[in-house]
């Protein structure tokens, strides 16, 4: 199967690959997928004043899964929480020109974004309750 140039580019030059400390303030972590299914994505966001100032990923999976998560981190940076919620897997499919058999990679990336946002929200709510 031939990959699109954009997938190849993200695969060869992954953006924002790495990790934040999970317990760091303002960090939300989403981990989705399973090793048995052949892909696991870890996506992390760092939030300050409701804006995502940084994002990082680590992915076990095929080239399209790596590219989808790499692209997701690029898109997340600079977005507000509300804007980030609106990223759809179909946007990723379109941007990376993913073939039908690779659509699940984009779904996984959307799930990872949602999971990271939810984790951040949970931690923020928790901190708020503690403060009260």
């Amino acid at each position, binding site marked *: 199967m031939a990959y699109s140039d954009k997938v190849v580019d993200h695969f060869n030059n992954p953006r924002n690959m790495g990790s934040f400390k999970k317990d760091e303030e303002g960090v939300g972590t989403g981990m989705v997928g399973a090793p048995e299914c*052949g892909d*696991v*994505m870890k996506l992390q966001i760092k939030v300050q004043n409701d804006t995502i100032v940084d994002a990082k990923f*680590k992915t076990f999976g*095929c080239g399209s899964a790596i590219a989808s998560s790499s692209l997701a981190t690029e898109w997340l940076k600079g977005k507000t929480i509300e804007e980030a919620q609106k990223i759809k897997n179909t946007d990723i499919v379109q941007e990376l020109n993913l073939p039908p058999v690779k659509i699940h990679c984009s779904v996984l990336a959307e799930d990872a974004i949602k999971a990271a946002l939810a984790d951040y929200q949970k931690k923020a709510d928790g901190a708020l309750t503690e403060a009260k």
Partner: protein
Amino acid sequence: MKLPIFLDNHSTTPMDPRVLETMLPYFVEKFGNAASRNHAFGWAAEEAVESARKQIAKLIKADPKEIVFTSGATESDNLAIKGVLEMYKEKGDHIITSSTEHRAVLDTVKSLEGKGKATATYLPVDKFGMVNPDAVRNAITAKTILISVMLANNEIGTINPVKEIGKIAKEKGILFHCDATQGVGKIPVDVQEMGIDLMSFSAHKIYGPKGVGALYVRKKNPRVRIASQMDGGGHERGMRSGTLPVPLIVGFGKACELCEQEMAKDTARLITMRDRLEASIMKELEESYLNGHPTSRLPGNLNISFAYVEGESLLMGMKEIALSSGSACTSATLEPSYVLRALGVGTDLAHSSIRFGLGRFNTDDEIDYTVKKVVEVVTKLREMSPLYEMAKEGVDLKSVQWAAH
């Protein structure tokens, strides 16, 4: 050294230039139909076919009359299994086969099962991918008419104890079909000694042309009969109609002759290169696991799982080396290799497997390059893998509740 490097010699092989040379006169100059009995064009073609039949038979210690030409091993498997089932249906309908057979065997058997024409037992294999002859013996029923077990596996290279299985088949009076596509020309094959009654193999796996294969059909002790699956002019003693592809058959014959003459030399070279590839990779990369049998394995085969990285991404990182992976992402089904699963390899490690297939034309330089590249790419992808990170932190990945999707 030229890029890309071809290390996928189980899928196909480049044709040996010496094979091509013998084929060339049979396209334009000696183009006759081997079935034309009344003129010189036909006689020349027939002579070429019969000479090739001898070369092929010699490689497997058969009689030339026992060679039936087909379009390839898939057709041979179909012809053997369907042909025997149809011919001997009064005797029974039970087939014994193994779970790691090529799909040309498995799907043929399943198709017969689905149509109510056969019942089947799929024998499990041990952790090295080997069929246990005792399991074959125990699976035999009064209705068993065919045992079909492969000589060597196409993914992991494991060589089955075919001789022992042949002995059991003979003892019980059951026909034994062997898909020897990966073994013929690579390891010594003797249909007498191995007790094989029907055997499938093809030319393009042994540096011959694509589009031609053979089915060995035993003529004596016992005389095996099969129902033809292709009706027509009654070629190949009525077992396979269709005009013989003379140039391809000539090439097939030459390819077999070369394998016979050069097997010792090729094998020694391949084992040295393969063992060096294996040892160098294993030394550099922790948590790399060999799939298949440590010793009873095809000379050119090496199948390794690299924990924490996914196979397709590995192939993508090594685009200049032609390899194959058991990862689901390389297949249309989303399921990882059924062969590795049958060995008991976890789904995660099955996704992480790479098959290296060495052949006659690979060089030491190519092996050096491959080692360097594999180490580089696996290391890079492990850095990128959340699983590797977790394992390094001491997390037991088996204990994690994954959000499966």
